[in-house]
């Protein structure tokens, strides 16, 4: 752990613990990040993509720490991975989870040219960057002898205060914008409690109906549920359970149960009806 701390602060203060740690860690993280990024763009399920992105972001956070930006590393983990990515996941849950994206590409030549373009970009930029003399890590200036956080704070609130203010305005605007976009306009007037009560009494059913299960006669896991019209819901039995029946050689058991249940229900209904009719006749 201390290594990490030293690493985190080491880059900022110019005292590297051991260059080998640096390099090994870098290579591991680099390969991990690249593989995760490739996986992100290639897997089918959206949730998996989000998780791969999380891997990339976390490895980047460690790299920030290695480069002497510990504050940025923690912000990356907390804000980026923890908030933004989770937001992504929420939206995927809302929208994208049932969409199985087909692998067939609709636009001809898109994949080929996208791949070529990306490859070309990589080659060109590496050539360009390689030509530039980037040198090694420079020693930090005296103004940065305080720790990373204080230094950042000094910069943000003096040199970069104007962008800071604008960014805050941006955030407010973004929040408002999201609210506006997500807002759904009411098409019907909002029902007050008085309206609800009125409606209830008018319909004749004041008390709520008993929740499901009150009139249930069975609660075994392999008994299908009863629908209001007296038939059974075959989908209420888990497929695994139904499969067990088939495996055990009594494949028609569900059918038998269904028939029994429906017969039971009919008898019960008729009895109640007769009782009700007799009760009325008496009264």
């Amino acid at each position: 752990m201390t290594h990490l701390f030293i690493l985190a602060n080491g880059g900022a203060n110019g005292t590297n613990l051991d260059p080998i740690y640096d390099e090994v860690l870098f290579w591991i993280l680099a390969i991990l990040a690249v593989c995760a990024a490739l996986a992100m763009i290639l897997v089918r399920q959206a949730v998996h993509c989000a998780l791969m992105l999380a891997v990339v972001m976390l490895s980047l956070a460690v790299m920030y720490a290695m480069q002497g930006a510990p504050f940025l590393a923690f912000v990356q983990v907390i804000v980026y991975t923890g908030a933004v990515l989770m937001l992504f996941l929420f939206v995927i849950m809302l929208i994208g989870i049932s969409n199985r994206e087909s692998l067939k590409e609709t636009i001809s030549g898109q994949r080929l040219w996208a791949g070529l373009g990306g490859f070309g970009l990589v080659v060109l930029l590496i050539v360009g960057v390689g030509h530039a003399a980037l040198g090694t890590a420079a020693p930090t200036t005296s103004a940065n002898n305080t720790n990373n956080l204080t230094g950042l704070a000094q910069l943000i609130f003096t040199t970069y205060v104007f962008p800071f203010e604008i960014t805050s305005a941006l955030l407010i605007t973004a929040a408002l914008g999201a609210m506006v976009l997500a807002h759904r306009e009411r098409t019907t007037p909002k029902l007050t409690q008085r309206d609800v009560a009125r409606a209830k009494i008018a319909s004749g059913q004041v008390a709520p109906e008993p929740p499901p299960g009150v009139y249930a006669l069975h609660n075994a896991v392999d008994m299908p549920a009863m629908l209001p019209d007296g038939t059974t819901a075959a989908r209420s039995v888990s497929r695994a359970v139904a499969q067990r029946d088939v495996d055990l050689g009594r494949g028609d058991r569900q059918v038998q149960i269904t028939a029994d249940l429906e017969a039971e229900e009919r008898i019960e209904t008729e009895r109640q009806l007769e009782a009700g009719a007799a009760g009325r006749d008496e009264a």
Partner: protein
Amino acid sequence: MTTLAATGVLRASWLLLAFPVFGAAVLLLGGRRTDKWGHLLGVLMSLASFVYGVIAFFTLLSYPASERSRDLHMYSWIPVNGFQANMGILLDPLSICFVLLITGVGSLILIYSVGYMAHDTDRRRFFGYLNLFIAAMLLLVLSDNYLGLYAGWEGVGLASYLLIGFWQFKPTAAVAAKKAFIANRVGDAGLSVAIMLMFAEFGTVNFTGVFAGVKSSGSGVGLALGLLLLLGACGKSAQIPLQSWLLDAMEGPTPVSALIHAATMVTAGVYLMVRSNPILAQSADARMAVAIVGAVTLLFGAIIACGKDDIKKSLAGSTMSQIGYMMLGAGLGPAGYAFAIAHLLAHGFFKAGLFLGAGSVMHGMDDEVDMRRYGGLWRILPITFVTFGLAYLAIIGIPPFSGFFTKDPIIDAAWESGGTQGWLLGGAAIIGAGITAFYMTRMMLMTYFGARRWETEGVLGGAGAHPATPEPHVPHPHESSPVMTWPMIVLAIGSVGAGGFLIINNRLDGFLAPVVGAVPAPHGLWSWPGGIALVLVVLAMGVAWTMYGRVPVPAVAPRGSVLTRAARADLYGDAFNESVLMRPGQWLTRLSVYFDSRGVDGVVNGLAATVGGSSGRLRKVQNGFVRSYALSMLIGAVLLVFGLLVVRL
């Protein structure tokens, strides 16, 4: 001879132009309101001009011979710095001769037309056009500069077009009018280039200025001017190579043929040549060209006239031939100018007489022109026969009639021009005289003698305002009314006496000598070439009699020899024009059209098609998929980075 200003009576010489202009204006602008008295006004205006012309003539005669050139300045036409052109009238012996001819013969023909066009509803328009013609012709001969002459030149061309196509509902007439105008235009181009050359060389287009300048400018300019003026004259006078329009011009009414295409307009070319004699004096080659054109045309026209059965077309060929004589005379220099004018004046009389006689015959034959349908008319149309006969004797050159006196000096001058030239020109003139006698005798025999073929075969008509009848019918010929016969009689008197009057005692060449120069070696009335010509004439009359007098004339033209067929086809003049001029022009036009529609339009349409096609393909790029747009952005970014790196590294 120096030109003096006009004084006294001559100061009113603008009346010569004003009368016919006024007549034309009233008749053409007045419209149908003037129909009832229009023809009378036309005749009156022409007679008024004639009367003034006579007065002017005698006034000129009263001056001494060196003072007979009088100029009247009417108004300043183009007063531009560096170029002055005025409207002025030059009255001198040459122009006064033409004035008398135009107004005199013109008035006679106008009187004749009152009767000839009596049944035509457009008679008033006819007289309006004729007055317009007279005005333009007078401007041509009276103008004192080449530009005014050109204005008159164009005016007579216009009048000729209007009058040939007078019956504009006849397609043949409209086509003939267009042909005449276009052939004239070619000649006019030569004349206008000559005027431009004059202005370029001398800075003026006045007669006096040009004639003074050409003396000092050398023979090159003289040759160029001479040849260009010759081209203009060929167009107007129907000489080779611009002769094809004259025979087609017979589509017009007969008075038009008589006045314009016999007596006056076609002689305008000769006037131009004679007036420009100082220019021709500078270049012997130009004179030679004029003489050769004249000689060739006189033979050409005579041969054509032999093969034509249409009386008017035969007379037109004769006109072409006689003007060839005049041109030949004009090309012989001072030896021939005066005689060319003499022949011109005499020709005016007898050719007009011949045409009016032909018109009288047509009038009686229900507008039939085919001589094969005539025959034996001398008893029925006696006055016509006598006047026609006198004009016939005049044209073939039987003494003592006009043609003998006026043709022989030209033949003599041609013969005496010396050397091979003399043999060729003189020989051509003599042979031409013989052929003239042949076709004129043929015409007389077919028309007035022999069996009455119109009684047995009938006529079809069609040369007038009414179309031809589908079946031949028998006409009822009768002598024409006095209003038609009296002009013919007057012209017959002229045919008889004009030649002798002009030539005997060197009257005309003395009168014209101040203008055209004196005849170098005047000779008597008899000469060897003249004698040979007379013998040839009598022989030709005999040959014609054996062919057409002794044997009956078939009503349907027989196939004939090669020469006959060639003569019927105008010696292939039309065929030549078509193949040498029209067809290449047509190919050129078609090529231009092809080039325009394929080349130019092809480029333009091809451009549009390229844009349309490429845009049709390019629009597919916008396929609506955001991802493909993003891909193009990525590719663009990659290319940008590549470019940046290439530049910087």
